[in-house]
C-alpha cells in the first residue's frame, strides 16, 4: 500500500506527514510524529486513552484514520499547556492527586477540556457521564471529578 501525504495543523502548528491508508491517527501521531502523549489502551474506542480533538470535536484517535486529518485542526495533550504555564486542569490534576499511574491522564485531560469548553459549569453527574468513555483503573474517579470541578470553578472565576 502506498503512503499518502497528509497536511494538517497540530496544536496550532502546520504539520505534514505520510501515512498508510489504513493507519490510525493515533499511530500516525505516536509513530510518525513522536507525539506519544496519546496512549493506546485498547485500539477499539473503549478506553479513551487516545483522546484528541479533531476540528474541536473530541474523538478517539484510534478510531480515526490518519488520512482523515487532512486539512483538519488537531489538538493533543502536548498542546494543552501554554508554554510552561499549565492549563488549570493540568494543575488541579496534580494538586488533587487525580492521577496515580497517569496513563489515562492525557485522555482524560483532553476530554475534560472539551467538556468545559462546551459546559463551563457542569454538575458532577455531567462530568461523570462525559468522562464515561475514559477508563481509569487506578483512582476510582473520585479525585478526577474533584479536580475537574476545581479547575472549572477556577476557569469560571478567571
Amino acid at each position: 500500500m502506498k503512503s499518502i501525504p497528509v497536511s494538517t495543523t497540530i496544536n496550532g502548528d502546520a504539520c505534514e506527514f505520510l501515512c498508510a491508508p489504513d493507519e490510525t491517527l493515533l499511530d500516525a501521531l505516536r509513530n510518525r510524529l513522536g507525539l506519544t502523549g496519546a496512549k493506546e489502551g485498547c485500539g477499539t474506542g473503549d478506553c479513551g486513552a487516545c483522546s484528541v480533538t479533531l476540528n474541536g470535536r473530541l474523538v478517539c484517535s484510534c478510531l480515526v484514520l490518519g488520512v482523515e486529518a487532512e486539512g483538519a485542526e488537531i489538538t493533543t495533550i502536548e498542546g494543552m499547556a501554554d508554554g510552561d504555564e499549565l492549563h488549570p486542569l493540568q494543575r488541579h490534576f496534580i494538586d488533587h492527586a487525580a492521577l496515580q499511574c497517569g496513563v489515562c491522564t492525557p485522555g482524560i485531560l483532553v476530554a475534560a477540556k472539551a467538556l468545559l469548553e462546551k459546559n463551563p459549569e457542569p454538575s458532577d453527574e455531567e462530568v461523570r457521564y462525559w468522562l464515561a468513555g475514559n477508563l481509569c483503573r487506578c483512582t476510582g474517579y473520585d479525585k478526577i471529578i474533584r479536580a475537574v470541578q476545581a479547575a472549572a470553578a477556577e476557569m469560571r472565576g478567571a
Partner: protein
Amino acid sequence: MSLDEYRKREFKQVGQRVRRPDGVDKVTGRAMYGADATAPGMLVGRILRSPHAHARIRGIDTSAAEALKGVKAVLTGADLPAQEDDFIRDVQDNCMARDKALYDGHAVAAVAAVDAATARAALKLIKVDYEVLPHVTDVDVAIKPGAPVVQKGRSLENVPAGMSENVTSHCEFGHGDPAAGFARADHVVERHFRTAATHQGYIEPHAALASVTSDGKAELWCCTQGQFFVRTLCAAIMGMEASQLRVTASEIGGGFGGKTTVFIEPVALALSRKAGRPVKIVMTRDEVFRATGPTVHTSTDVKIGMTKDGRITAAEAHLRYSGGAFPCGTVDMGAQAAFAAYDLEHVRTYGWNVLTNRPKEAAYRAPGAPQSIYAVESVVDELCQHFGLDPIDVRLKNAARKGTKSSYGPTFPDIGLIATLEAAKKHPHYSAPLQPGQGRGISCGFWFNFGGNSCVSLNINTDGTVGVTEGNPDIGGSRASISLMAAEELGIEYDRVRTIVADTSSLGYNDVTDGSRVTFAVGLATIKAAREAVRVMCGRAAKIWGIDAEAVEWKDGAAVPAGPNAGKFPPMSLAEIAAVSFETGGPIAGHHEVNVDGAGVSFGVHIVDVEVDKETGQTTVLRYTVFQDAGKAVHPSYVEGQMQGGAVQGIGWALNEEYIYGADGRLQNPGFLDYRVPVASDLPMIDTVILEIPNPGHPYGVRGVGETGIVPPLAAISNAVSRSAGIRLSELPMSPPRVLKALGG
C-alpha cells in the same frame, strides 16, 4: 535485621499533601511509558496465539513466514532452552508454548519484521499443526477425577490420593475442634459460593523494547512492577548473566500485581538476539485479556456457627481455586486470610489448587483474599440477619485483636481492626436513613502486607539538595512518599529532595512493587540511608569544629553540639556542610540495603448503600465509605487514592467483571466493551477515613495500604444487595442477569 521500632514523633514533612515529582510530565504527555520508547533500526515484534483451549503442537512450519520480505526473525518454543527449575520453566512456557498450547491465547510463535503490517502478514504464514485435546475451564469440573488433565505430573506430595491430576496442591490451616464448636452454636449456616476470574485491567498494555548486541549485552525497556525480577527471569530464560542484561522500568500505566512477571519480555529479547536489531513488542488489549494474568476463579464452601447473642462458635471453609494452566499458590493465601478478622476458638480452612485451560494466574491486589473473605463475610451477614443483630456489633464482638491467635497461626501484635470497626460504627454513613428499596452492607477486609529486599542510595548534593535513588517502579505516587520520608529524616523541605527509580545496573536488587511493600520497606531503607548520611554530616561538622563526632547531633536539618559540654557552635545546616564537602573529605552520601521484615497487617471496613432495580437487575452503588488502617499516612492523598481505587476495582468485581469462557474453551469477552470495568458514571464519590494505628515495625509506623481495599467490596455489596432486594447471591459477579434470575424473573 533487627526491627526498627516505631517511636512517636511530630512529623514536619510526612503527612503533607505535596506535589508529586512526576506530575508535570504526566499531565503534559511527556512521561515515557512502555510503548513510548523507540530505538534506531527497531523492528516490530508480534506473537501468534493458540485459538484452541488445549492442543498438542505436532509441528510448526515457519518457512513461509521466514521467506516473507521484511521478516527478520521468527521464534518458536524450540528456540528457547530447556529449563531445570519448575518455576522458571512455567514462566517460560507461559511466554511461549513448548509442546502443548494450554489455553486460548497461549503464545506459540513470534516474528520480528520491519513494520507492523509485515509482522501481521508473517503471522498468517506460520502453519501450526495442532492436535486438539479435550479441555476444561471450570474449577468444579477440573477437580473431578476423569476431567481432562491440563498438565500431568504436577501434583505436590501434599495432595490426597484419589483426586484429579489437575489438583496440584493442598493446604490446611486453623486450630481447635470445629465439630465441637458447631455443636455449641444456636444456628449454623453453610453456603456454597463461586467467583469469576477477573483481570487487573491496567489501562497500559504490556510493552517491551529489547536490544541484544552481538557481544552478548542486552538492554530491555519495559513496563513492569519489578525490573530486577524481570532481569532474573529473562537472564534465566536467555541464558545470560545478570550483569549483561540491563532492565529499565518505564513509567508504568497500572499493574495491580499483573506486571510482576514476564510475558513478552523474553520473547522480545530472543527475537532481538535472532534478528540482530532492537525489537519492540506491544500487546493489544485482546492479548492482554487472553494471555496475561487474570485472578484465580474459585468455588468455596463456608460454614459458620453462631450463638444467638452473636458469638461465633466455629468456622470452616473449603476453597477450590484455579490459577489456570500452571500450578499456583494463591489458595494458600486465601485460606490463611479467610477468617483473619475473627478471634476464633475453632477454625479450619482447607484449600486446593486446580489446573484448568485458562491463562496463568498473575497476582492481583491481595491475591486470594477477596474470594475467600467474600464467602466468609456473606455468611456472617446471613447469620446477623438471622438473629436480627447489628453487623458491626457482631464483628466487634468477634474481632481479632492484640493477642488473638489468628486463624492462620501467629498471635496478632497491635492491629487496628477494632478501631476501624468503631470508626465505621460512629460514622454518619452508618446511621444515615435509607429509602425503601435501598440496602446497606458492610464487610471487613484484610491483607498481610510484606517488606522485602530494598536498596536505597541517597546523595547530598553540594548545593544542599538531595537525590534519592531507589529501585521500585512508582505506580501511585511512591516517589513523592519516599522524598517525604527522606526530607523528614534529614530535616529539610520536601522540594529539596528528588527521588528517581534506577535501572538494574545502577542499584542492588529490589523486590517487585507488590504486597503493599514500597512505602513501608523502601521507606524504611530510605530512612536508614538518610541516617547514614546524617552520621557522615555530623562527622564533618565535628571535624570542622574540632570536637568528637559523638559530641554532635542532628536537629532540624543541622548539626548541633550535643549538650553544653560539646562546646558552643552555631548550628551548621545540611547545605552548609554540603557546600564544603569536597574540602572536608569528599562527596556525602548514605545508602542502605536490607531485606525488610516487620510489615504490619492491614484491616479495612467498607460500608456501601445500594439499590437494586427489580426490572433490569441492575445494582446501583449509592454511597460508599472506606475505613482503613494505614499505620501512618505518608502522603494522605495517595493513601486515599489506594483506598478508592481498590474499592472501585472490588465494585467492578462484585457487579460486572468476569472472564466468560464458551463451550469451546475460548474467552468470549477479551475487550473493554464486554469485560466491563467501572466507568465514572457508574459510581458515587468514594469517601475515605484513614486510621493511623502505628505499625510497631516501622520507625514512622507505616503499614502498606495498597491491597486491603479490594477485599471488602465483594461481600459488602452482596450483603447490601441482600438487604435491598431480599436475595442472597452466591456467585460473582452479581451481573443483571444473575440478579434477575435470583429475583425469579
